[in-house]
């Protein structure tokens, strides 16, 4: 391959390089730019296409526009309880405190949220949130966020490197970040960045599962880059299966059906027509959940005197309940259960509040959701786990390396509440951008990256030098099947052990890839690089899931059905092993919440 090596690689110097252009990456870049740093955004898709556009329901923020009783303390409490108390308390606190101002800021930059009758930003109900709290734009809130931040970043003139994939991070002799390396997808030529601060904002890992709501980009790039740079991941056993994904037709299986359907009055029914969620209210949420249909239905208009419908329990509870109903043979014809809003709300209301859902079902499944119920089932949606960071600055264990959004860990504990993702992006995006800029301002010496370039190039081009006959697409499909079957919503020790064996076999096969074609815009080559990230991150998930012998939030063990307070006090930390071909796992005590915050959990 020597003749393929470029002698003169395109090179750039920046103070801050942000990898990823979803909500958290754009917000981090804006903050870094505002703080005076020369900032670049590097994204493997076109600007404005990031997975954030898929977020539908809204941005959770205790603005109190509908319920003046709401405040950050209630939001903090809801978030911690939703995460089954495994969240990093400080992140949950900062998130609840700062989300309202971050939302107002989006409006300053041109976002057009739905309004209350008083003209304020409207807020809608969602699972696990005590009050109507999600700022929203119909059911396309993520699109509004991405477009607003994208337009702001362009207005500020922040450099954007589109369709440019980062394959490696570099470190200087001092062990701190010195830059990043990648390729332009369009030409297949290489590009290198010299920068003392790098912010990972690469999103999640869901493309390792067969039934998923996630896009092609979700290959765990940031998770893997961080591991290889020497940073640690936490909470990786916690993968959120969203209760409501489409189940038919097969080609859209897993596609998200927003929780807003339930927030706006939709209910879940089995094949016998029974509203079954009343049978699945766990002890932990009994005190705040309605136990009769009448009380549940009154709640939408009178939250003070009624408790929340069980359809709006946190996502992990609802997903498990649906799973049980299907397993018990009370599923729908295509293996899901029914989500019904047609019999509960007028067509006008549905068109106004859920236009994308109406469009999606009409176009893709020939179902009119104003007339008939939807068939839905759980789908892999979000990874709670990610890079272990300092809660105030989002700094990882490596100097100069920051992580935000879905690729960071800790904020959501063992289960994320709906709406808390979009707010997470902008709260910690801003914090990371500012911290990254401050570090660069205080680092006058820049480490050279030249010594790393040849090896990085060679690694990226390796798939063109065939060492076998393996097809990356086939390995990806096999990995997706393995994760789906063995590391899915309900787990057992036997299956997890089996999954680790299969992942090892896939890793071995991935050493023998063959790519057809040339370097310009070659998806087969791109996947041959991404597949290694997917395998490494999948190993993290399976390993942590096998170690955690309890059920909590997004991690359900059939062989350890209940939560265990001993496990509830510790995190599982994953790092790259010494040979660099797998991961090591260690236990670490959870940060202890100060007494003044503990009081929020004592009243009930």
């Amino acid at each position, binding site marked *: 391959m020597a003749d393929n090596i470029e002698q003169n690689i*395109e090179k750039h110097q920046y103070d801050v390089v942000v990898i990823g252009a979803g909500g958290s990456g754009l917000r981090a870049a804006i903050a870094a730019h505002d703080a005076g740093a020369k900032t670049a955004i590097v994204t493997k*898709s*076109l*600007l*404005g*296409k990031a*997975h954030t*556009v*898929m977020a539908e329901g809204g941005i959770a923020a205790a603005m109190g526009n509908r319920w003046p009783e709401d405040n950050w303390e209630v939001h903090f409490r809801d978030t911690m309880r939703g995460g089954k108390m495994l969240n990093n308390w400080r992140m949950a606190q900062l998130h609840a405190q700062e989300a309202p101002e971050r939302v*107002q800021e989006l*409006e*300053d930059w*041109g976002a*057009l949220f*739905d*309004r209350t009758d*008083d*003209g304020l930003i409207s807020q809608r109900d969602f699972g696990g949130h005590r009050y109507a709290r999600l700022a929203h*734009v*119909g059911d396309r809130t993520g*699109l*509004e966020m991405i*477009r607003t931040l994208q*337009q*702001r*970043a*362009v*207005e500020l*003139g*922040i*450099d*954007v490197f*589109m369709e440019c994939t980062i394959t490696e991070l570099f470190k200087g002799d001092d062990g701190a970040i010195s830059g990043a390396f990648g390729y*332009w997808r*369009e030409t297949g030529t290489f590009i290198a960045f010299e920068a003392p601060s790098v912010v990972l904002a690469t999103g999640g890992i869901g493309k390792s599962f067969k039934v998923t709501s996630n*896009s*092609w*980009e979700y290959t765990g790039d940031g998770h893997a880059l961080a591991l290889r740079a020497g940073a640690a991941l936490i909470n990786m056993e916690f993968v959120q299966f969203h209760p409501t994904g489409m189940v*038919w*037709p*097969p*080609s*859209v299986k897993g*596609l*998200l059906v927003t929780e807003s359907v339930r927030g706006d009055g939709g209910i879940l029914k089995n094949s016998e027509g029974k509203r079954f969620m009343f049978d699945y209210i766990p002890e932990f949420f009994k005190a705040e959940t309605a136990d009769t249909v009448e009380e549940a239905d009154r709640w939408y208009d009178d939250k003070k005197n009624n408790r929340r419908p069980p359809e709006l329990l946190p996502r992990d509870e609802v997903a498990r309940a649906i799973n049980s109903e299907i397993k018990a043979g009370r599923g729908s014809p295509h293996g899901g259960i029914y989500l019904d809003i047609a019999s509960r709300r007028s067509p006008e209301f549905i068109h106004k509040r859920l236009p994308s859902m109406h469009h*999606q079902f009409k*176009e*893709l*499944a020939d179902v009119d959701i104003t007339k008939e119920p939807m068939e839905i089932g759980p789908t892999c949606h979000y990874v709670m786990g990610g890079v272990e960071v300092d809660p105030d600055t989002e700094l990882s264990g490596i100097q100069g390396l920051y992580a935000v959004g879905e690729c960071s860990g800790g904020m959501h504990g063992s289960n994320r509440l709906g709406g808390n993702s979009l707010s997470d992006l902008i709260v910690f995006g801003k914090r990371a951008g500012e911290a990254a800029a401050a570090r660069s301002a205080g680092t006058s010496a820049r480490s050279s990256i030249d010594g790393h370039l040849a090896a990085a190039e060679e690694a990226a081009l390796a798939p063109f030098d065939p060492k076998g006959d393996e*097809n*990356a*697409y086939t390995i990806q499909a096999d990995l997706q099947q393995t994760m789906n079957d063995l590391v899915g919503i309900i787990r057992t020790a036997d299956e997890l052990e089996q999954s680790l064996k299969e992942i090892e076999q896939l890793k071995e096969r991935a050493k023998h890839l063959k790519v*057809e*074609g040339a370097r*310009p*815009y*070659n*998806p*087969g*080559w791109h996947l041959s690089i991404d597949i290694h990230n997917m395998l490494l991150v999948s190993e993290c998930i399976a390993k942590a899931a096998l170690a955690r012998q309890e059920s909590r939030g997004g991690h359900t063990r059939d062989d350890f059905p209940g939560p265990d307070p001993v496990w509830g006090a510790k995190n599982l930390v994953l790092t790259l092993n010494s040979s660099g071909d797998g991961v090591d796992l260690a236990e670490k005590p959870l940060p202890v919440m100060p007494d003044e915050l503990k009081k929020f959990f004592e009243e009930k």
Partner: protein
Amino acid sequence: MAELKMRVWRGDDEGGALQDYTVEVSEGEVVLDAIHRLQATQAGDLAVRWNCKAGKCGSCSAEINGRPRLLCMTRLSDFEPGETITVTPVRTFPIVRDLVTDVSFNYEKASELPSVSLPPRDADGKRRMAQVDVERGQEFRKCIECFLCQNVCHVIRDHEDNKPAFAGPRFFLRYAELDMHPLDTHDRRELAQGAAGLGMCNITKCCTEVCPEGIKITDNAIIPMKERVVDKKYDPLVWLGTKIGIRNKDNDGREAAPKQKASPVKRPR
């Protein structure tokens, strides 16, 4: 599984041709599923853009049997059984490879467009707008930037030389959105007419026809925007009023928007 006959354009900026494929497909699938199966089993290097596969990101624009469509929202059942499906890249933008085109034209036009400019917030730190007033802009903000409207607009589809002077329907939508924002303080009418070339649009409605979001681009954005420009520029009463110092209410609190700078979006060196 059934067999589908496809013709897919393969090539790059130096040329290419339609290639015939036969691919297995199953019930309920969309064209993008068939393209993905081609990739996975027969043509690993087939270049195609896609992200969400749910009609929300606007990445997978292409021409299917000559019609500009999203690959992920075009169901195979829309075609006759046995019909050959031909997939070609969008025509208005330069080819990168196979079904992928260079859409940087759109990012350049986006950066020329002055962003929103709002007055200070209310005393309590919040802003107030009526739902009925934000709804007009909300329709335009449904845009997923698939650029199919840009692709089909004959002002640039058939006249490459118009590109420097013409922003295209996607950005007229943005001008209209900002002009109808209940709190925005900028006046972009001259820019819309001058730099963006709004006058070159002769309202053939091709853009509206292909919009996968069903936005009434021509009726709700372009025509009202044209009227606003005309009101300012050619209405004799307004003209007279300006001359003798009577202020037009439409200009109250609004100042001309500054011209914007070059696109910060980078291309390979």
